[in-house]
């Protein structure tokens, strides 16, 4: 408790309201059991008068609200729970100062306020939704305003237009009334999503601040159409709000529950209060500024009346930690921090108090907003410059994926050309694994499928590793680098596959295991990513029909081709090659793009798979072209796509499926529809997250699943406008206004009977023949609307 603060504790009970006289030298507090006038001295309050006297203390003495006339020195008005509005005259002789009782309201009156310039006008707002304007000279109700809302919580005359007043009500509405017209309000708008409890006019700007149960204070520009200027987020329902005099952007508020402190906010900095006064031990019930921006009075349910000085305020911003951290959708972390440390805290004894308003989470950007920055600069001229640091996340940088997404082509060309293009794109961004998949697609589908079955069986490999049915596909820069480890992890997806090896026992199995890529062998089962396959257990499961057996597999010598010949000789003819399962653990590193460096490590982790005699075999061999194995590519490609999807690269999976066009159905037996949909939707979501709307739409357009391509129709709605007045018409009905008028031909201005043709862009039209003739000669609409019409 700050000693220099002026306090006064009333024993009788808490005050519900307080009001200052015109000069701010006296204050009246009113509550259920208390009704007193104090004069404000330099350091304390002196009781001037107790108005709650007399034998018959009825409910008229229990006030909800009190107002002091802004003109008359001696006139007070109170509102009571029983609906009475009582006018008091302090100048009356005798003990009872009660001047007149208006008992026109049947329910509780929540608010009374005096007109700012007209001394005889008093307005009241009541629980029953009515406002009554009393004329104190006639001692009767001058006008009754029926708001048609729920309870009126506050009424305030505007300081700008003498006849206007604002009324806020429990259903969240704000109404502006002209005091001379009681039929209907001038304006009405919904201000809050909960009850509005208070409002206050700005003294200079045409602004109205409203406080609501939805825990916000909103500032409305009432100049023309009500426009929301600022919103302040607090931690509790806001009970009262008062602009700070002479400060354009500052407003004081107190909460209805939970928060005992009075906060002064800068409306441009809506999250942290500019100053906090936390002297009260219970909820603050009323605040009033003392005609100057540095002192104000407040009453609370703890029965105290305080005079606060602004110099004694606690400034939450001073002990707020000016660091901001935010994580972006791409995994980047932004951190904003002051450049140099803040000055030491003022040794304010109040500074260690609980600061309401700090803990509230707000949907803000991660960096300092310019306003906040400006406020910070004002407060700390020395430490103003902030550092905005941006850290990239650990994970794979998605920029290359996004860039690829922009450059990939998905239609308009034959499959192999698309694949070639996409492979180039992928390689340009160092995504070699992905590029490799595209190469495979290009190779596999680059030529028409072979018509005639191969003359010879692909050679069954001998039991030893030396008998690899190795197919070289295409040399890469990395080939040499990987050459010595080729047998350690042959067939790593996306890496240059230098040899393919089919163990004989598996080779036999493939005849009976048709179609399905069932797990066979322990190495296969243990492979979590379905692509981590041991050399020993590499299994190619092929459909029978693609594999007409004519002869028992003869013993065959290893057919290995040199890498340099691989491209020319085998070219794209080794369908299964690159996408074949292989050893290696790229599945476990979870990142497609970072596979090459990882492979280097993992290759050494599988030394057991190496066969000594193959270790040094730099050159590769492949059977000549006639011997290329006609393995069915579909299941392998499907596996590759699944693998990519498992690695989190849904882009490749989805796009390959799209690019395949007519070959797509080959994959259907291996990838069920749910998974396809999952991929497509995942990719579309990814694109939308990165604002690549065009690409996403392209994907939707290329999609083959009805559930996906119907996305393009999902959020589009068609409304019908009247062609004449442009007003939206009801569905399947004529425009209400233009109904009696028939449609005229835009060319001949005659009523159209029969065929009516119109442009769907501007909705002008006419006789079919006229329109056709017009369109042959002209570009623009015959009605003169300037639209480039298109008929048909």
């Amino acid at each position, binding site marked *: 408790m700050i000693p220099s603060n002026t306090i006064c504790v009333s024993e009788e009970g808490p005050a519900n309201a307080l009001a200052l006289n015109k000069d701010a030298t006296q204050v009246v507090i009113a509550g259920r059991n208390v009704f007193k006038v104090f004069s404000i001295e330099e350091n304390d309050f002196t009781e001037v008068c107790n108005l709650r006297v007399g034998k018959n203390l*009825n*409910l008229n003495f229990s006030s*909800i609200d009190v107002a002091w006339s802004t003109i008359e020195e001696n006139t007070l008005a109170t509102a009571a729970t029983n609906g009475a509005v009582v006018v008091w005259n302090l100048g009356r002789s005798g003990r009872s100062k009660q001047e007149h009782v208006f008992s026109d309201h049947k329910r*509780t009156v929540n608010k009374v306020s005096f007109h700012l310039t007209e001394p005889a006008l008093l307005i009241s707002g009541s629980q029953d939704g009515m406002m009554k304007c009393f004329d104190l000279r006639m001692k009767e109700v001058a006008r009754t305003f029926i708001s048609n809302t729920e309870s009126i919580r506050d009424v305030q005359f505007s300081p700008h237009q003498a006849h206007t007043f604002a009324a806020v009500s429990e*259903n*969240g509405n704000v109404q502006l009334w002209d005091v001379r017209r009681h039929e209907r309000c001038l304006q009405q708008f919904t201000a809050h*999503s909960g009850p509005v409890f208070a409002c206050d006019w700005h003294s200079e700007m045409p602004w109205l601040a409203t406080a609501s149960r939805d825990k916000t204070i909103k500032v409305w520009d009432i100049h023309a159409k009500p426009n929301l200027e600022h919103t302040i987020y607090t931690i509790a329902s806001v*009970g009262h709000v008062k602009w700070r005099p002479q400060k354009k952007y500052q407003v004081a508020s107190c909460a209805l529950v939970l928060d005992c402190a009075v906060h002064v906010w800068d409306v441009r900095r809506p999250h942290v209060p500019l100053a906090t006064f936390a002297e009260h031990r219970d909820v603050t019930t009323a605040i009033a500024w003392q005609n100057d921006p540095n002192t104000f009075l407040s009453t609370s349910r703890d029965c105290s009346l305080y005079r606060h000085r602004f110099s004694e305020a606690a400034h939450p911003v001073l002990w707020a930690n000016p660091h901001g951290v935010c994580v972006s959708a791409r995994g980047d972390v932004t951190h904003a921090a002051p450049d140099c440390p803040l000055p030491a805290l003022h040794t304010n004894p109040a500074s260690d108090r609980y600061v309401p308003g700090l803990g509230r989470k707000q949907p803000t950007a991660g960096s300092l907003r310019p306003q906040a920055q400006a406020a910070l600069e004002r407060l700390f001229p020395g430490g103003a410059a902030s550092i905005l640091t941006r850290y990239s996340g650990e994970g794979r940088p998605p920029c290359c994926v996004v860039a690829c997404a922009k450059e990939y082509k998905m239609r308009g060309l034959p499959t192999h050309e698309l694949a070639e293009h996409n492979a180039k794109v992928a390689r340009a961004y160092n995504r070699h694994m992905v590029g490799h998949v595209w190469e495979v697609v290009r190779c596999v589908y680059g030529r028409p499928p072979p018509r005639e079955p191969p003359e010879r069986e692909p050679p069954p490999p001998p039991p030893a590793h030396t008998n690899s049915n190795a197919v070289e596909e295409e040399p890469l820069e990395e080939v040499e680098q990987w050459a010595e480890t080729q047998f350690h992890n042959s067939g790593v997806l996306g890496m240059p596959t230098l040899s393919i090896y089919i163990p004989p026992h598996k080779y036999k199995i493939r005849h009976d295991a048709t179609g399905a890529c069932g797990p066979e062998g322990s190495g296969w089962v243990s492979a979590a990513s379905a692509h981590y396959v041991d050399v020993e257990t590499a299994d190619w499961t092929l459909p029978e029909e693609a594999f007409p057996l004519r002869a028992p597999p003869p013993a065959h010598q290893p057919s290995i081709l040199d890498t340099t010949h691989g491209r020319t000789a085998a070219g794209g003819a080794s369908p299964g090659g690159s996408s074949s399962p292989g050893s290696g653990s790229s599945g476990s590193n979870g990142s497609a793009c970072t596979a090459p460096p990882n492979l280097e490590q993992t290759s050494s982790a599988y030394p057991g798979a190496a066969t000594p005699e193959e270790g040094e075999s730099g050159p590769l061999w492949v059977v000549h072209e006639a011997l290329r194995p006609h393995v069915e590519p579909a299941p392998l490609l499907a596996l590759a796509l699944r693998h990519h999807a498992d690695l989190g690269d849904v882009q490749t999976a989805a796009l390959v499926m799209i690019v395949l066009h007519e070959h797509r159905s080959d994959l259907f037996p291996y990838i069920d529809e749910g998974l396809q949909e999952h991929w497509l939707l995942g990719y579309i979501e990814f694109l939308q997250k990165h604002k690549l709307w065009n690409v996403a739409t392209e994907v939707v357009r290329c999609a083959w699943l009805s559930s996906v391509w119907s996305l393009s129709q999902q959020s589009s709605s068609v409304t019908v406008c009247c062609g004449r007045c442009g007003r939206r018409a009801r569905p399947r009905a004529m425009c209400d206004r233009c109904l009696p008028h028939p449609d005229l031909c835009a060319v001949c201005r005659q009523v159209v009977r029969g065929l009516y043709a119109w442009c769907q862009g501007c909705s002008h039209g006419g006789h079919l023949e006229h329109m056709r003739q017009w369109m042959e000669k002209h570009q623009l609409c015959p009605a003169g609307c300037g639209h480039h019409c298109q008929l048909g």
Partner: protein
Amino acid sequence: MSYQDDPNGYVGSFPKDFTYGPFEQNGDGDSSSLQDDHKPRILLRGLRRSGKSSIQKVVFHKMSPNETWFLESTNQMVKDDINNSSLVQFQIWDFPGQIDFLDPTFDSDTILGGCGALVFVIDAQDDYQDALDKLQLTVTKAYRVNSNIKSEVFIHKVDGLNDDYKMDSQGDIHHRATDDLAEAGLHHVHLSFHLTSIYDHSIFEAFSKVVQKLIPQWPTLENLLNILISNSGIEKAFLLDVVSRIYIATDSSPVDMQSYELGCDMMDVVMDISCIYGMVDETETNTFNNESSSLIKLNNGTVLYLREVNKFLALVCILREENFQKQGVIDYNFLCFRHAITQVFELRNKCQSSGTDRRRSGTPDAVPNGAADSTESTSDHSQPQLA
């Protein structure tokens, strides 16, 4: 003194002709009967899948909000009697969304004639243009048939919306609905808008407000509560309906959502515990009687105090611990309050039995207010006790 001593009591709560559906009665035309006047109807309207049945189930049948997922869509009108309390006697008519008021087979005169309030539910998560069109048709039609009908609009399912969007759609719906009505020439018809969700207490609060408007004695009750709380040092008092937990009345201070939730939760606790432990003998199934009361002290110095008012109403008070020192005074004030409420009910019953014509002409509004004056004096007795 309690209502149970009263031979003419309304304790029986079920009207004598309870077995008759009012619908059949209305079938024979003109004699739209007294019983219907006793039980104003609340019609639930809205597009299909907008959540009408969910609202009804959650509010009046204690269905957990999550279970409403499994509700089938309503295919025919469901009539639900909420006449469990002497004050709260009304029916909820849940219409299937596809029923068209303009359909000639739809007997709008009968249905809308005795209807007290029309609740139109708009799904805020959906495109609401169609709903607004239908709202305009429905309100226009209802107003033509029955100009006293109160139109309430529930902007429903707002739990899924963020605050800004909530505000925008509320403002937009308000604006457009009012414009539509003005275009149809109904400037003076007033629509009340409520943002509701079944996942919090907003639907209870909204329904409370709808029901309160149907209770002619509501202002009296509010005044009584005002007197009670100001004389007993209570911060907030709710008169809760025991079954549905909607509040029939509260004092005039602002309703804070948390206090209302506290009150509802306390009601639940009391009902659950008394169901388990309150069974005195096998014959008595209703364990909530005039001995029921409950006291919960929260660790923030707040006391929740519940007292039974009558079989279907309970008073929940929220007050500070230091004001609870003199519990005797509060109890005495409460007895005065209960007595006053009993008087209001007696008066109402007298009005009802003395003829239907007077009821219709609006006299009941005036009479209970007179009663309020008398109860004020009874409560005033308690004031010296406090001082």
